[in-house]
């Protein structure tokens, strides 16, 4: 269907439109960007009629093989939830950067470019195309951090770029090895003939290395906090919301199916990486005084649940990973959005300097409390179903070894409630007594995210209906049930 290709083409057209029509204006680019990002959402919604929401796979149109040798796109149960997430976060990111006036056209063109490349990653049905999109994601993100970021933006942008580029370099070697040895570039063909691989262990770990940096797994996570702290709000939203998800997606899409028996042997390692990430990320988050750094490190903890779920090697574990990814893709952006709104008013992120903001900014405080409760995994909100399923699946696979994960869940409550207490509670800080609460315009993206968080929390089957068949196939490969 053409709509599949439009998911990449629409934001790319948006890039052209923003550059052509928006240059020199401070406000026109954001309107154009919003229009195109909403168009992306509409295109995705139109795919519902093709059964995408119930797990039906839909192929993109076939272009001339000679002119576009690698261009094959496909949406299935594994990619649909993450594309849905992208469809929500696109407009949210544009709205979050409504106040950006400096080089506005470039900013919004990069946002749309980022959206196109991320959609490409989730849609690519060809390993070369996948790699191209994978790397293409880095470039707009590098500039978003490096140009519109905070004080130490250049260092953070370079660290982000080099770090994740190094990770994907390993992945490239793995992919090219697979391509040369199987003689195919189409994802399905590569996987079908993956048994010919001479060094499956090496190929698996080369590819997994790129994914683990992206997720990020401890100890290759330190690019994340710096990148988030320095990134502008929209950058953080997309970074936490969808970029990190590329790692979990890649493990399930490529690394596992290309070498299932290596994956089987690697499961304990993934479990340890996940468990350590859950506990370690939460402990780090608890020690932070920078609110944005706290949220960033909480991502390390949440993404640990993705690894834990995948390490179970079962359909239920994979479902947990998908639920956690979608949920974190909503909750972390909401937190970053709110922290950004607070920073816009106070120009600080230091928890110690805030006090009693609940009385000063009641609307903001309500949303922040909501987001913190979602982050700590409160049932009824999106975080719970995935983490619960990850614990159930993890216990099934690893029994009482997952007890450190429980400690991580207690710490998750601790760092989230500490953030709430530190900023919202206590006597009203005179320093901030005069600042104004968030406006109706600020509310729109926050309420959109909050509504999605409630919807997914109340009805997680929305995601599981999409993933069902695709995950069953992967689980069958992995030998689990």
């Amino acid at each position: 269907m053409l709509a599949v290709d439009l998911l990449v083409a629409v934001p790319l057209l948006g890039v052209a439109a923003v550059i052509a029509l928006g240059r020199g204006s401070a406000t026109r680019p954001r309107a154009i960007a919003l229009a195109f990002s909403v168009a992306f959402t509409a295109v995705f919604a139109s795919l519902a009629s093709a059964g995408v929401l119930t797990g039906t796979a839909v192929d993109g149109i076939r272009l001339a093989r000679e002119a576009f040798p690698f261009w094959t796109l496909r949406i299935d149960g594994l990619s649909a939830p993450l594309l849905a997430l992208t469809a929500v976060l696109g407009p949210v990111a544009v709205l979050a950067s409504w106040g950006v006036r400096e080089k506005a056209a470039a900013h919004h063109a990069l946002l749309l470019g980022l959206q196109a490349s991320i959609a490409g990653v989730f849609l690519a049905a060809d390993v070369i195309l996948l790699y191209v999109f994978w790397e293409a994601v880095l470039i707009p993100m590098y500039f978003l951090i490096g140009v519109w970021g905070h004080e130490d933006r250049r260092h953070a942008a370079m660290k982000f770029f080099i770090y994740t580029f190094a990770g994907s370099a390993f992945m490239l070697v793995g992919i090219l090895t697979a391509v040369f040895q199987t003689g195919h570039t189409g994802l399905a063909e590569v996987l079908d003939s993956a048994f010919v691989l001479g060094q499956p262990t090496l190929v698996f770990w080369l590819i997994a290395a790129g994914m683990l940096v992206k997720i990020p797994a401890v100890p290759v996570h330190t690019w994340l906090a710096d990148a988030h702290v320095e990134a502008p709000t929209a950058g953080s939203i997309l970074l936490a919301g969808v970029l990190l998800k590329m790692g979990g997606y890649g493990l399930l899409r490529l690394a596992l199916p290309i070498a299932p028996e290596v994956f089987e042997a690697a499961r304990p390692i993934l479990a340890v990486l996940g468990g350590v990430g859950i506990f370690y990320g939460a402990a780090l988050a608890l020690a932070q005084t920078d609110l944005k750094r706290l949220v960033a490190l909480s991502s390390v903890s949440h993404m640990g649940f993705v690894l834990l779920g995948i390490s179970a090697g079962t359909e239920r574990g994979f479902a947990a990973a998908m639920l956690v990814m979608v949920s974190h893709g909503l909750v972390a952006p909401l937190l970053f959005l709110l922290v950004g709104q607070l920073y816009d008013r106070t120009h600080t992120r230091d928890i110690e300097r805030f006090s009693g903001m609940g009385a000063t900014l009641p609307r903001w405080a309500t949303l922040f409390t909501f987001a913190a409760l979602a982050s700590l995994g409160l049932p009824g909100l999106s975080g719970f179903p995935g983490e619960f399923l990850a614990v159930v699946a993890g216990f099934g696979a690893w029994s009482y070894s997952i007890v450190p994960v429980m400690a991580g869940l207690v710490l998750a409550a601790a760092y989230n409630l500490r953030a709430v207490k530190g900023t919202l509670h206590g006597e009203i800080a005179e320093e901030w007594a005069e600042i104004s609460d968030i406006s109706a315009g600020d509310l729109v993206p926050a309420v959109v995210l909050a509504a999605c968080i409630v919807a997914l929390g109340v009805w997680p089957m929305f995601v599981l209906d999409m993933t069902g068949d695709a995950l069953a196939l992967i689980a069958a490969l992995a030998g689990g049930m």
Partner: protein
Amino acid sequence: MTGIATYGWSVVAVPLVIAVLAATAGRVLGTRVAALAALAPAWVFAVGVAASARVLAGEEGAIASGSVEWLGAGLTVGWAIDGLTALMLLVVGLVAFLVVVFSRGYLGPGEALPRYFAVLALFTGAMSALLVADGFLGLFIGWELVGVCSYLLIGYWFTRPEASTAAVKAFLTTRVGDMGLLLALALLWREVGDLSYTAVFAAVPGMEASTVSTIGLLLLVGAVGKSAQFPLHIWLPDAMEGPTPVSALIHAATMVAAGVFLLARAWPVVGASADVQTIILVLGGFTAIAAAGSAGAQRDIKKVLAYSTISQLGFMFAAIGAGAWVVAMFHLVTHAAFKALLFLGAGSVIHATGTQRLDAMGGLLKKMPLTAGTWFVGAAALAGIPPLSGFFSKDEVLHTVVGADLGWGVMLFAASTLTAFYITRTTVLVFFGSYRGEGVPHEGGWDLRVPLVVLAAFAAALGFAGGPIAELAGGHHGEIDVLVASIATALAVLGIAVGAVSGIRPKQGADVTKLAFVGPLRWARNGWGFDEIVRQTVTRPACATARVLDRVVDRGVVDRSVEGVGALARLVGRGYSALQSGDTQWYTTLLGAGTVALLALVAYLGRGV
């Protein structure tokens, strides 16, 4: 009328809708938001009445139920109403309704009423969800949601640092217990592959004894946290930072009783392990006496009631440990009535005097006769004076525990004597002697008075409803044991006498706890110093570990090694191409070189093709 029990799910849905309405339209409604919120518990109560009528009329098992697949194959959430649930719906509906009415008068119009009443309605729905769940997953969802409502209401006056700290402490302490419950669910799922009660209970006989014990223990960990039993009791005294009506509802009558409810509900698992029962008995008995001792040394009226609640929940645990969960449920119901009454009475006093300090009260009998009269009913019920409700239920608890283990039975008799002591001492300090506080205290409006009268009626008379209560809970009502009852009553009179003497006539501003043995009293007042032990051995080390992981491990080692590689590369790069300047050019070079190296590697790996 009894047909509404068929729509049992509505005890969750109706309060949730009301919560949303109260939160969004609350500002328009003004003080009328209380009337809106009152509809939530009123509906829960109505369903409870309808369901109870059907159970008492002889319907067996679950009278209505439904479920839906919620989290993939086999993981369903659903609801089912049986007698035990119906009984709890009655308790929750009634107390919550009266608390909403009381709150209307207690909180002034300047308060954040929409937030308060919305969370109160949300709590009603969450508590109902916990009660009507047809399996452990639904129970866990409600369990967590009542916890967060408790957090939000303890921290209602969030600009007070103590309130915020207490709210966080409550959430984190109970969260530790919740992890036990979560692990129990994971274990049940692995063993049974289904989390609904019927499936789990049917599978218990086929399980290994050690597995059953483990599941029972893990469920107990959850119950201990929620019901504030040793060693996870430390959050409840601090939770008194919340508005007093909230303490009455959540931290006395309903939510803290959820642990008892869980053990009763999961009795086919819990009761299948003698070891687990012994642990429950020991924990309950120990908590009952230790907390009763602390209650006797408090200076704050709400702290007395908080430790009293911990102690009374200990009685219920002891009864369960002795194998008599029906008795525990009976005491749960009477306790809900007389403790809610005492808390609301304390609220009335606090509302009138503007203080919680016992040394700033006194002589309120003449100034607030209705509050005093209803308080006396509650206090006498708590002390176990016949024929008030507490007498009957406590007699059954003592009787069963003595029958199961004489040693712990004696301990409970002692705890019971202490109970009579502390509540009498408090009563004397508040209502007798001369007024030591400021202003002219007087009774509140009708909304403060009516709930007191209604609860007093229940606290007085519920003891005679032991039959129907036991029938709803699903068991049989025991006879009064004359010997146990006589000893208990005599001990209660002794406790009252000592309490009356200890409470007589402190001077204005005097430390009401300054008796001959000050040191032990302070020790008792601070919960036997256990709080401090937890702070030193858990909280501080945990925070210190987090800081070390952050500063030393993460920034010091992990990140520095990454940055070190980068710096080294830059250094090599400068030496390598001294002519070039600037990071960008150098990185371009690096990328170029890297690409060549990678292509070489690819060529090597792909050579076989």
